[in-house]
């Protein structure tokens, strides 16, 4: 078992989920109730990571994060080290890839709140922020939490994008998913087996939890 890879995977998952949470919930609420021009395009763009091959995403991210790009150059000038092939670069890539996994459960949860309840908060004199924290979030929280867990679970399991953007640097960008691939290449089937079983159990737990939360939303 590669403990440093597991620790890295869990850190990456937590960082990705924590970054997506404060952006995801308000964005999901906006998509659930607002109707604006080009909403369908925005929704399609946000769901893109679901269907694109990880190599395509990885390629574009590598271009965007590289030292030659404005973002990569700016990051390097501030921190002194490049964004690509670093943990921070991995977090950035992971956040983008996971947008749909966070957003979709959250959006469904906000959509499930009856329109009249949403309007009742307004006619009860609540300004938008208060309505969000007192009425909408308490009703949508199982979906929001479910988005958080899905993001974490998916991040732990992400392979292609991580390999493209992060490479395979032990302690920096080598996650469990990469470590498994690494061990199989080295014919170390026992280590690969242990790590695979760990990921399997983690993923099953995460999915079981979100299914249970999904039932709560439906009620």
């Amino acid at each position, binding site marked *: 078992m590669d403990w440093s890879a597991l620790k890295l995977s869990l850190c990456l998952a937590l960082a990705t989920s924590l970054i997506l949470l404060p952006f995801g919930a308000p964005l999901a609420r906006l998509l659930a109730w607002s109707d604006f021009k080009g909403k369908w395009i925005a929704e399609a763009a946000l769901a893109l990571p679901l269907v694109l091959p990880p190599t395509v995403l990885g390629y574009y991210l590598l271009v965007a994060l590289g030292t030659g790009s404005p973002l990569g150059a700016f990051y390097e000038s501030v921190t002194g080290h490049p964004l690509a092939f670093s943990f921070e670069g991995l977090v950035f890539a992971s956040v983008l890839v996971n947008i749909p996994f966070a957003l979709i459960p959250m959006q469904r949860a906000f959509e499930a709140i*009856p329109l*009249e*309840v949403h*309007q*009742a*908060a*307004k*006619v*009860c*004199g*609540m*300004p*938008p922020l208060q*309505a969000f924290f*007192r*009425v909408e979030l*308490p*009703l949508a929280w199982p979906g929001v939490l479910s988005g958080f867990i899905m993001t974490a679970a998916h991040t732990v399991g992400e392979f292609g994008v991580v390999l493209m953007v992060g490479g395979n640097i032990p302690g920096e960008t080598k996650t469990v998913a990469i470590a498994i691939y690494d061990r199989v290449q080295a014919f170390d089937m026992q280590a690969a087996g242990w790590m695979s079983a760990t990921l399997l159990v983690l993923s099953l737990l995460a999915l079981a939890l979100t299914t249970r939360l999904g039932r709560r939303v439906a009620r």
Partner: protein
Amino acid sequence: MLAVVLHQKRPITLDVDLRCDQGELLALVGPSGSGKSTVLKIIAGLLRGDVGSVRIDGETWFDSEKKINVPVHERSVGYVFQSYALFPHMTVLENLMAAGGSEARARHWIEAVRMKGLEHQRPHQLSGGQQQRAALARALVREPKLLLLDEPFSAVDQLTRDRLYEELAELRRRLNIPVIFVTHSLTEAQLLADRMVVLHRGRTLQSGTPEEVFRAPATPDIARLVAHKNLLEAQVIAADQTLTLLDWRGLRLNAPPGAFTSGEKVAWLIPALDVRMNGPDEAPAHVDNRFEAQIESVVPLGDQATVRIRMPNGECLTLSAAAHIVRKRQLAAGRSIGVSLLPASIHLMPHEPH
């Protein structure tokens, strides 16, 4: 006083002009899809009006010309939704306090709507009638300048509805604010409202007391909306200050004077309750508009019966009679009876081509 003027083409056509005084209970009546709920939502600010204004007590909530549109949460309005829309994760007391009430005031209103003892229940533990009361209390705990009720009685059973009618009638005497409720039920409007406004295809057609609107609808359209059964057409033969003489497909009718000239086509109606059956031994003579008619059908409905009669000119009229009279006089299809169409009950309207 609340004054609402709306003119718009989209998303639905609205041509609305209505007023509601302090302490007045105004019913907004119309068939489904007539725009009643839309008007209510524009007044509350939940929907944006296109052209027009909403003013209350010298405050402007919406004015398209001056580009004023006060956000919903800044309008002092109490709103009861059709589905009540209580916050499901809060108790009754918390629902009221979420609407900006102090705990003392929330408890006061819970008592006022007879919900004492239920303050710690969640909405799903309440019956439909209790949810409605809680929603009403939540709307009033803010001490709003205006109370709006969107079909408040449509989701409860008849028994609960009757009790809620009484409670609303009692409660409103304590409120000195304009109250508007939306309904498609004329009975509800007649029972509760001081005044009603008829809305049809987004246009306010007529306003007045329920009695006025029912007795004297301004157009045949409104007569149909308030469910008049005897809505007919005739031609004016002569008209002066004392009466209008009509030719109703060969029958002569005396009707009250109106702004009609001889030769003009008019629509007219007589309420089913005002088609009088003449007693068997009643002297004919001086009563106007007496005819011999043939009974087509008698349909008993509780303690009233609906009797369809065919007049000598072949036209049909409907009259309402007490069930015991129908039994006593053995009224049945095929028999003939004498009827009078009391001139004072006849109402004339401008003719509208269909």
